[in-house]
């Protein structure tokens, strides 16, 4: 296990360096001149040149990249062009909000997906199964902003049960988390359903039935834990995916997380923020996968044995 973690940490460092290099190149390839954007409409050519020099944008690409990597190694993600403030501090200030939303979203999708998946498996081929599968299909394919606006309109505007936007209380998290959760739950429901069907056909389940165990006990004690393994791996992957997926949800609900920060930075061509958020998201994806790799053998002796 220690070896696995060590190997993964080295991989993480290499992946992050690769992500930094690719993002850097892509952003550098943009025809937009950040100095021109910062300088605004009325600036003289001298002002633009001064800003370019102050930001080091007049340096060769390699020098700029090396300066950036040196910064990262010292824990410095640079300064935002538009906000003139430390990118690391900006991301840290917004990270808790995104983590709360992510945790709540994953909770909703797992609970909802698991419940629906199990019900569908138990009622395989029946009307309930078909309805659940149809709903999960809709959930998987619905655009995020449509679901977000629909929930907002029904539960905040019409019924007034939840606040329309903002952050701070438990009520604020319900709709954004439900939006993220509903969309993810579709995948979980489909996965749990097929895993459960698989498990329910296993010999040990048949044995359990023959021993006269109740259906509830068979499902909860014997079948479900075995069907959960792919779910654990998926949660790990979800952590990374959510980092990218929160942009729309955060924008609609006015959620002050890093998705919103990234969206605004893209519009302002604020390269240090875009780079910072990309790196943090890449880190989250890698760590999420690592987490899944560590947890799976702890839960399943068969993987450990391999």
């Amino acid at each position, binding site marked *: 296990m220690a070896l696995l973690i060590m190997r993964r940490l080295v991989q993480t460092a290499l992946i992050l360096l690769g992500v930094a290099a690719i993002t850097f190149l892509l952003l550098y390839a943009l025809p937009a001149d950040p100095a021109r954007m910062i300088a*605004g409409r009325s600036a003289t050519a001298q002002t633009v040149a001064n800003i370019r020099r102050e930001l080091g944008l007049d340096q060769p690409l390699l020098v700029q990249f090396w300066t950036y990597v040196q910064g990262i190694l010292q824990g410095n993600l640079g300064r935002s062009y538009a906000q003139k403030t430390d990118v690391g501090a900006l991301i840290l200030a917004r990270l808790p909000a995104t983590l709360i939303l992510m945790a709540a979203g994953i909770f909703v999708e797992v609970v909802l997906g698991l419940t629906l998946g199990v019900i569908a498996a138990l009622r395989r081929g029946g009307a309930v199964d078909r309805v659940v599968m149809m709903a999960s299909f809709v959930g998987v394919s619905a655009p995020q902003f449509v679901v977000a606006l629909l929930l907002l309109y029904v539960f905040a505007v019409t019924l007034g049960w939840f606040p329309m936007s903002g952050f701070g209380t438990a009520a604020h998290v319900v709709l954004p988390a439900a939006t993220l959760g509903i969309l993810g739950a579709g995948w979980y429901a489909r996965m749990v359903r097929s895993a459960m069907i698989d498990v329910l056909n296993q010999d040990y389940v048949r044995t359990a039935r023959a021993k006269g165990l109740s259906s509830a006990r068979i499902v909860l004690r014997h079948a479900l834990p075995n069907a959960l393994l792919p779910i654990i791996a998926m949660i790990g992957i979800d952590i990374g995916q959510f980092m990218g997926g929160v942009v729309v949800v955060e924008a609609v609900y006015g959620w002050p997380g890093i998705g919103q920060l990234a969206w605004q930075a893209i519009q302002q061509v604020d390269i240090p923020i875009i780079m910072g958020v990309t790196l943090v998201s890449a880190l989250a994806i890698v760590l999420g996968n690592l987490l899944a790799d560590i947890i799976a053998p702890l839960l399943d002796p068969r993987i450990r044995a391999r």
Partner: protein
Amino acid sequence: MLKRWLRNTTMATALLITPLPAWAQETPQQGGDVLITYKDDIATLDPAVGYDWVNWSMIKSLYSRLMDYTPGTPDLIPSLAETFDVSKDGLTYTFKLRKGVKFTNGRELVASDVKYSIERAVNPKTQGPGAGFFSAIKGYEDVSGGKATTLEGIEAPDAATVIFHLSRADATFLHVLAINFASVVPQEAVEAAGGDFGKKPVGSGTFVLKEWTIGQRLVFERNPDYFVKDMPHINKFTVEVGQEPLVALLRLQKGEVDIAGDGIPPAKFLEIKNSPAGAGMIVDGEQLHTGYVSLNTRIKPFDNVKVRQAVNMAVNKERITRILNGRATPANQPLPPAMPGYDKSYTGYAYDVAKAKALLAEAGFPDGFQTVLYSTNTDPQPRVAQAIQQDLAAIGVKAEVRALAQSNVIAAGGTEGEAPMIWSGGMAWIADFPDPSNFYGPILGCSGAVSGGWNWSWYCNADLDKRATAADSMSDPAKATERAAVWGKIFTDIMADAPWIPVINERRVVAKSPRMGGSDKIYVDPTRVINYDAIYVKQ
């Protein structure tokens, strides 16, 4: 002999020449808290750096400057200055400061603070976008070029006197001292903030920043020591950021929000406008803006003036204002109607497809030609670009619409030979201050026709440049009307060369709750967008 303008005289003149606004009859109430929403986070509140339309209004209220404007009008009035003199040659400006003005850190504001603040705005280390506005001050080149840190042209002989020496007469100089970049800041607070002054602002304006939770809200409270009695009217305003305009509008309709700063999303505009409560919610005001199509005079066939004139006649501007739900008026010259110098008698190029075709044939293109029209990719700009594309197709000009991110369009415009036509919507010119010269230099003058510049027509007319310089040298305030007429003629003469198709003058729409008082003009203030100092809550 020096020409002396006493503050009272100036204020009295301003009041006399300005028609009394309707809201002057209403007595503004003191007190009340207001909630405002915006989509984007506030970038910075550093006056030497902030330069977008949202933070512009907030910076105006956090700091004071030597000059300011009567709320809701483009009329200059002294602010931190008690009196000022302009020398007859227009090269020396002497200001006497009000006594007893305090920064919100408790220290008295003195003349050396004015000098420090402007030097800071010009210093390249500040990376301020407004440095160029101060280019008329002696020693500007040395500071902006990094050779010096103090401006030779600013003197502070005592605590209450500031003298500016200019290297050339500049009729816009009083306006320059009223823009945000000229806000007065305390050096010790800037240094204590350690490069983060934009998040920890200290000024002497009407409000003090009490709280800033990144990504969520900013709370501004009334500055009890502000030097004008009974200003501002409200006790506090809270700005919630990250709010989608549609959600903000729904919250406003429910009474949770007082001002939806981003206005009404285009898709909802007519519905709100036609609703019973809508009329009281919508503030629809004229702004100093012109939306235009730049015609690149260095790209064929737009190097031919007849072609440029022909496309000017081909665009149906009425239809474009309909696409914008009537939130604009058709334009015929670069200056917007509210700007001094706007020529009411000038009719420009009328919409006339037959004449346009004939002119195009005369220019040697009877079958039209192919070209590219750039536009930003946010609604409604691509739709406007498509309308222009259809109009051009009617005279045989096949324009490919290239809708890109704003930064890419700006980059294409600033690259010689790159963009034949650009629809400027979403990035177009809104005046920094209400003076016609602000519509010339960077966008139509030779100085802007450089790589990375904003003169996307790459139009450079040496004769007009000379006339522009001469107009800007008419710094005697008594000649303001004459100067405006000179400028007006420059802009109508430019239209003979037709480097632009002036398309619309956009109106700004803000949505406010019925409890908010004051004239519409202070919600769409020509010099600061929302005038937080002047708005009030009806009791």
